[in-house]
């Protein structure tokens, strides 16, 4: 497999502009002869589908939710970064680029990240033009705030519902095209197979989740915008429907899967309350602008109520360890610091798996009303879930799986190694490296969909004539049969355990061994256990109903089946990467509890190639070459 990143030549700051000119164009009259299949309708998928339709392509868009407006991007709370420098606090495209590269622990591609920072400026303009009600200053200009890993205020926000508003902007743009007839929308439709004809992506096989029908769609290109795979952990902040199926099916058809072990653990989630729990809820990172994180100095005090621990007996560990970033230390660092104090036995709340996020100082300084105005909805949500009032006593938080930086490998054009298969947003691996800074997921999703893919996909079409096979082509029939066979197999087992119980066990295994800290020993144990669990799954999973009709248990079982295989790839990737970087923390490689990178051997993207059933996947490396910045050891002290 050849991994050609297709990074344009020339100085970093001019690469994208020059490349836009170099890429070929498709004449407007010819655009309507091309069909594009977009799978997913979140920030990346909806913005891509809308923009491609605006350009004149014929677009079909698929999502498993009942409406494209419900994609999980809607749940992002905090904000979106942009190098606008409206605050005159020293921001620039170069600084956003640098913060993002450094935040990702120098494991992202320089050219991609620079382009992301450049495009960020346009994204805000576009969203405001769409009517996204961003927060404003009294004078009417846009307000901003700070986020982790940055010393500037470059994050634009819409209360604590920024993802919702940006998604609604993209959904409305998409709706406009659906109304005009340029996009055909297929809600409650799940992709089960990718179809290649002569080595290029030409279609997908889907299941209509309402009537159960398995159908094929053909196109001149396929765009996957199917989000991340954090639900492999069972408990995560992802929506319960998020899954790896589309990307994993593409992997099995030959698309390389890059850095699957790079998972972001978010430091500010509501701690787990019991075995029944189905998901974890995030408290926005923006809370760390005003909330102070602490645990008691002595573990003897960790079971006392917070109010009876004297200030002198509190350990504000982020402020102590990272004085210049303090509570706004990046997510991976803040998460590990929280785990460390809990491992020392100083954690608070049930089971000792929690740290305080305390607003008492901010309430004294600004008054409760100001805090309510800034974060009221988050405080309400916290109270609904925990039954506690965070204005009166500090919130309890604990790290949880939030975002996956790994994904299908793509080149600078966002095209995978399969011609015609494009991957955007969280589903691809690009731009965040080994850790994602806050407020940059929304930025990447929209950058890919509005401002990158429309150019690069046009370039692909300009070099390839419209050539869409009929869905009666043998490759489609074969893929449909594979999909049907898998569904039947799920229904034919002996039925002793539910898909959920398997999902929960797999998730616990991955959290313990491939979570916040990984070790050779743990990963080896997980790699031994996963195939056993998988075998048990296929033999004893209980799935009721049939292939026909609306069958949510079958949907879930299919997703768990793919997680079962994917988990192995994830652990293998973590085991092979003998270093610590960003969200990947190998206990064997550390210096005083901080990540110890190995740039000599691992300054690369690891891209895994499927080698066939029962065969070990093949690891390929795309070296990361830094032309304009020096790789430095990452410090937030």
């Amino acid at each position, binding site marked *: 497999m050849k991994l050609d990143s297709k990074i344009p030549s020339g100085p970093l700051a001019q690469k994208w502009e020059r490349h836009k000119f170099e890429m070929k164009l498709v004449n407007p009259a010819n655009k309507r002869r091309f069909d594009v299949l977009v799978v997913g309708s979140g920030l990346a998928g909806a913005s891509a589908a809308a923009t491609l339709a605006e350009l004149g392509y014929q677009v079909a868009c698929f999502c498993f939710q009942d409406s494209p*407006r419900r994609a999980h991007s809607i749940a992002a709370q905090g904000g979106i970064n942009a190098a606008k420098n409206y605050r005159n606090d020293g921001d620039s495209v170069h600084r956003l680029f640098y913060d993002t590269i450094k935040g990702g622990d120098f494991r992202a591609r320089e050219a991609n990240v620079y382009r992301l920072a450049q495009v960020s400026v346009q994204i805000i303009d576009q969203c*405001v033009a769409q009517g996204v009600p961003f927060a404003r200053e009294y004078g009417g200009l846009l307000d901003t705030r700070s986020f982790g890993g940055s010393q500037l205020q470059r994050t634009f926000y819409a209360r604590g519902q920024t993802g919702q*508003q940006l998604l609604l902007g993209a959904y409305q743009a998409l709706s406009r095209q659906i109304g005009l007839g340029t996009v055909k929308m297929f809600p409650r439709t799940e992709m089960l197979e990718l179809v290649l004809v002569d080595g290029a992506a030409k279609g997908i096989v889907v299941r209509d989740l309402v009537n159960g029908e398995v159908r094929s769609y053909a196109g001149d290109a396929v765009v996957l915008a199917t989000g991340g795979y954090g639900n492999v952990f069972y408990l995560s902040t992802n929506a319960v429907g998020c899954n790896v199926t589309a990307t994993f099916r593409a992997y099995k058809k030959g698309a390389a899967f890059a850095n699957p072990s790079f998972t972001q653990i978010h430091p500010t989630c509501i701690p787990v309350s019991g075995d029944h729990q189905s998901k974890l809820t995030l408290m926005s990172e923006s809370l760390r602008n005003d909330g102070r994180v602490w645990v008691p100095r002595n573990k003897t005090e960790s079971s006392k109520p917070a109010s009876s621990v004297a200030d002198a007996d509190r350990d504000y560990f982020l402020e102590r360890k990272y004085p210049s970033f303090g509570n706004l230390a990046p997510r991976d660092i803040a998460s590990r610091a929280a785990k460390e104090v809990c491992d020392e036995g100083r954690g608070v709340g049930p089971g000792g798996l929690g740290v305080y996020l305390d607003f008492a100082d901010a309430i004294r300084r600004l008054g409760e009303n100001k805090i309510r105005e800034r974060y009221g909805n988050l405080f309400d949500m916290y109270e609904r879930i925990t039954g506690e009032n965070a204005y009166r006593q500090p919130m309890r938080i604990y790290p949880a799986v939030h975002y996956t930086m790994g994904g299908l490998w793509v080149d600078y054009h966002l095209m995978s190694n399969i011609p015609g298969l494009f991957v955007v947003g969280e589903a691809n691996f690009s731009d965040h490296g080994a850790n994602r800074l806050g407020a940059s997921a929304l930025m990447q999703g929209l950058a890919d969909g509005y401002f990158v893919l429309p150019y690069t996909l046009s370039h692909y079409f300009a070099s390839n004539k419209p050539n869409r096979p009929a869905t009666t082509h043998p490759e489609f029939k074969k893929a449909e049969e594979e999909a049907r066979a898998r569904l039947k197999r799920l229904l034919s087992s002996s*039925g002793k355990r539910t898909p959920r119980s398997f999902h929960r066990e797999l998730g616990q295994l991955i959290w313990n061994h491939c979570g916040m800290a990984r070790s050779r020993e743990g990963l080896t144990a997980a790699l031994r256990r996963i195939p056993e669990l998988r075998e048990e799954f296929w033999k004893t999973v*209980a799935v009721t109903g049939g292939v026909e009709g609306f069958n949510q248990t079958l949907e879930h079982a299919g997703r768990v089946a793919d997680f079962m295989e994917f988990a192995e790839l994830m652990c293998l990737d973590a085991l092979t990467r003998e270093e610590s970087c960003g969200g990947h923390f190998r206990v064997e490689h550390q210096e005083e509890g901080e990540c110890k990178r190995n740039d000599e051997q691992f300054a690369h993207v690891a891209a895994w190639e499927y080698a066939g059933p029962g065969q070990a996947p093949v690891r390929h490396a795309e070296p990361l070459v830094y032309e304009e910045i020096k790789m430095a050891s990452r410090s937030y002290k």
Partner: protein
Amino acid sequence: MHLTLKIWRQKEPGDTGAFETYSHPGAHPDMSFLEMLDVLNERLILEGKEPVAFDSDCREGICGTCSLVINGVPHGGQKGTTACQLHLRKFKDGDTITIEPWRARPFPVTKDLCVDRTAFDRIVQSGGFVSVSTGGAPDANCLPVPKEDADLAMDAAQCIGCGACVAACKNASAMLFVSAKISHLGLLPQGKVERDRRVLNMVKTMDAEGFGACTVTGSCEAVCPKEIPLTFIARMNRDYGLALIKGRS
């Protein structure tokens, strides 16, 4: 906790449907309402019975997917809360709880507790957007928006499109949803240009989809998980009247 659940079961859209009663001993006050249904479904699957179909996704009150009528009230009656954020600590040991889908003709039942809300999407497709294409947008700060307007637009924009307003209304009116959309876009300078056309088209689609008229009983406002106020309906009626007078379409 021991609960008795009376749940609406319906195989498919045309089916008559009926309540079935389940004794549910395995509940815990810290569980969310949907987690309680997860636990029930685990049991049903192991007994070889069809689990109860219900919709949910984000489970943090923002995606608008969950759609349960609990004890006769959409989302269960905790002020400003979606069904997924309702926790069992709000119920008592020994309670009997009835669970139904949204009831409204424009929202046909897909199965059990799931309904088809694509009518909402079609309303948005007929005008719930700003007609701007990608690229070439002016600098975001070139058009200041007074904070009061931006805040009010945001109050409207936070509608999650769940449809509880329709389910609570005796006429199955979609006015609260449509008015939220119209107010959000109409309050911002970017959306003002198309204000007349938007309100006329969206109201027309709303009627064509079979949603009923508003008689201002306020039941929508009472159940709205985002507490969208009735005043937006007044705003929409005014916009609609003005657009009719101007005679634009």
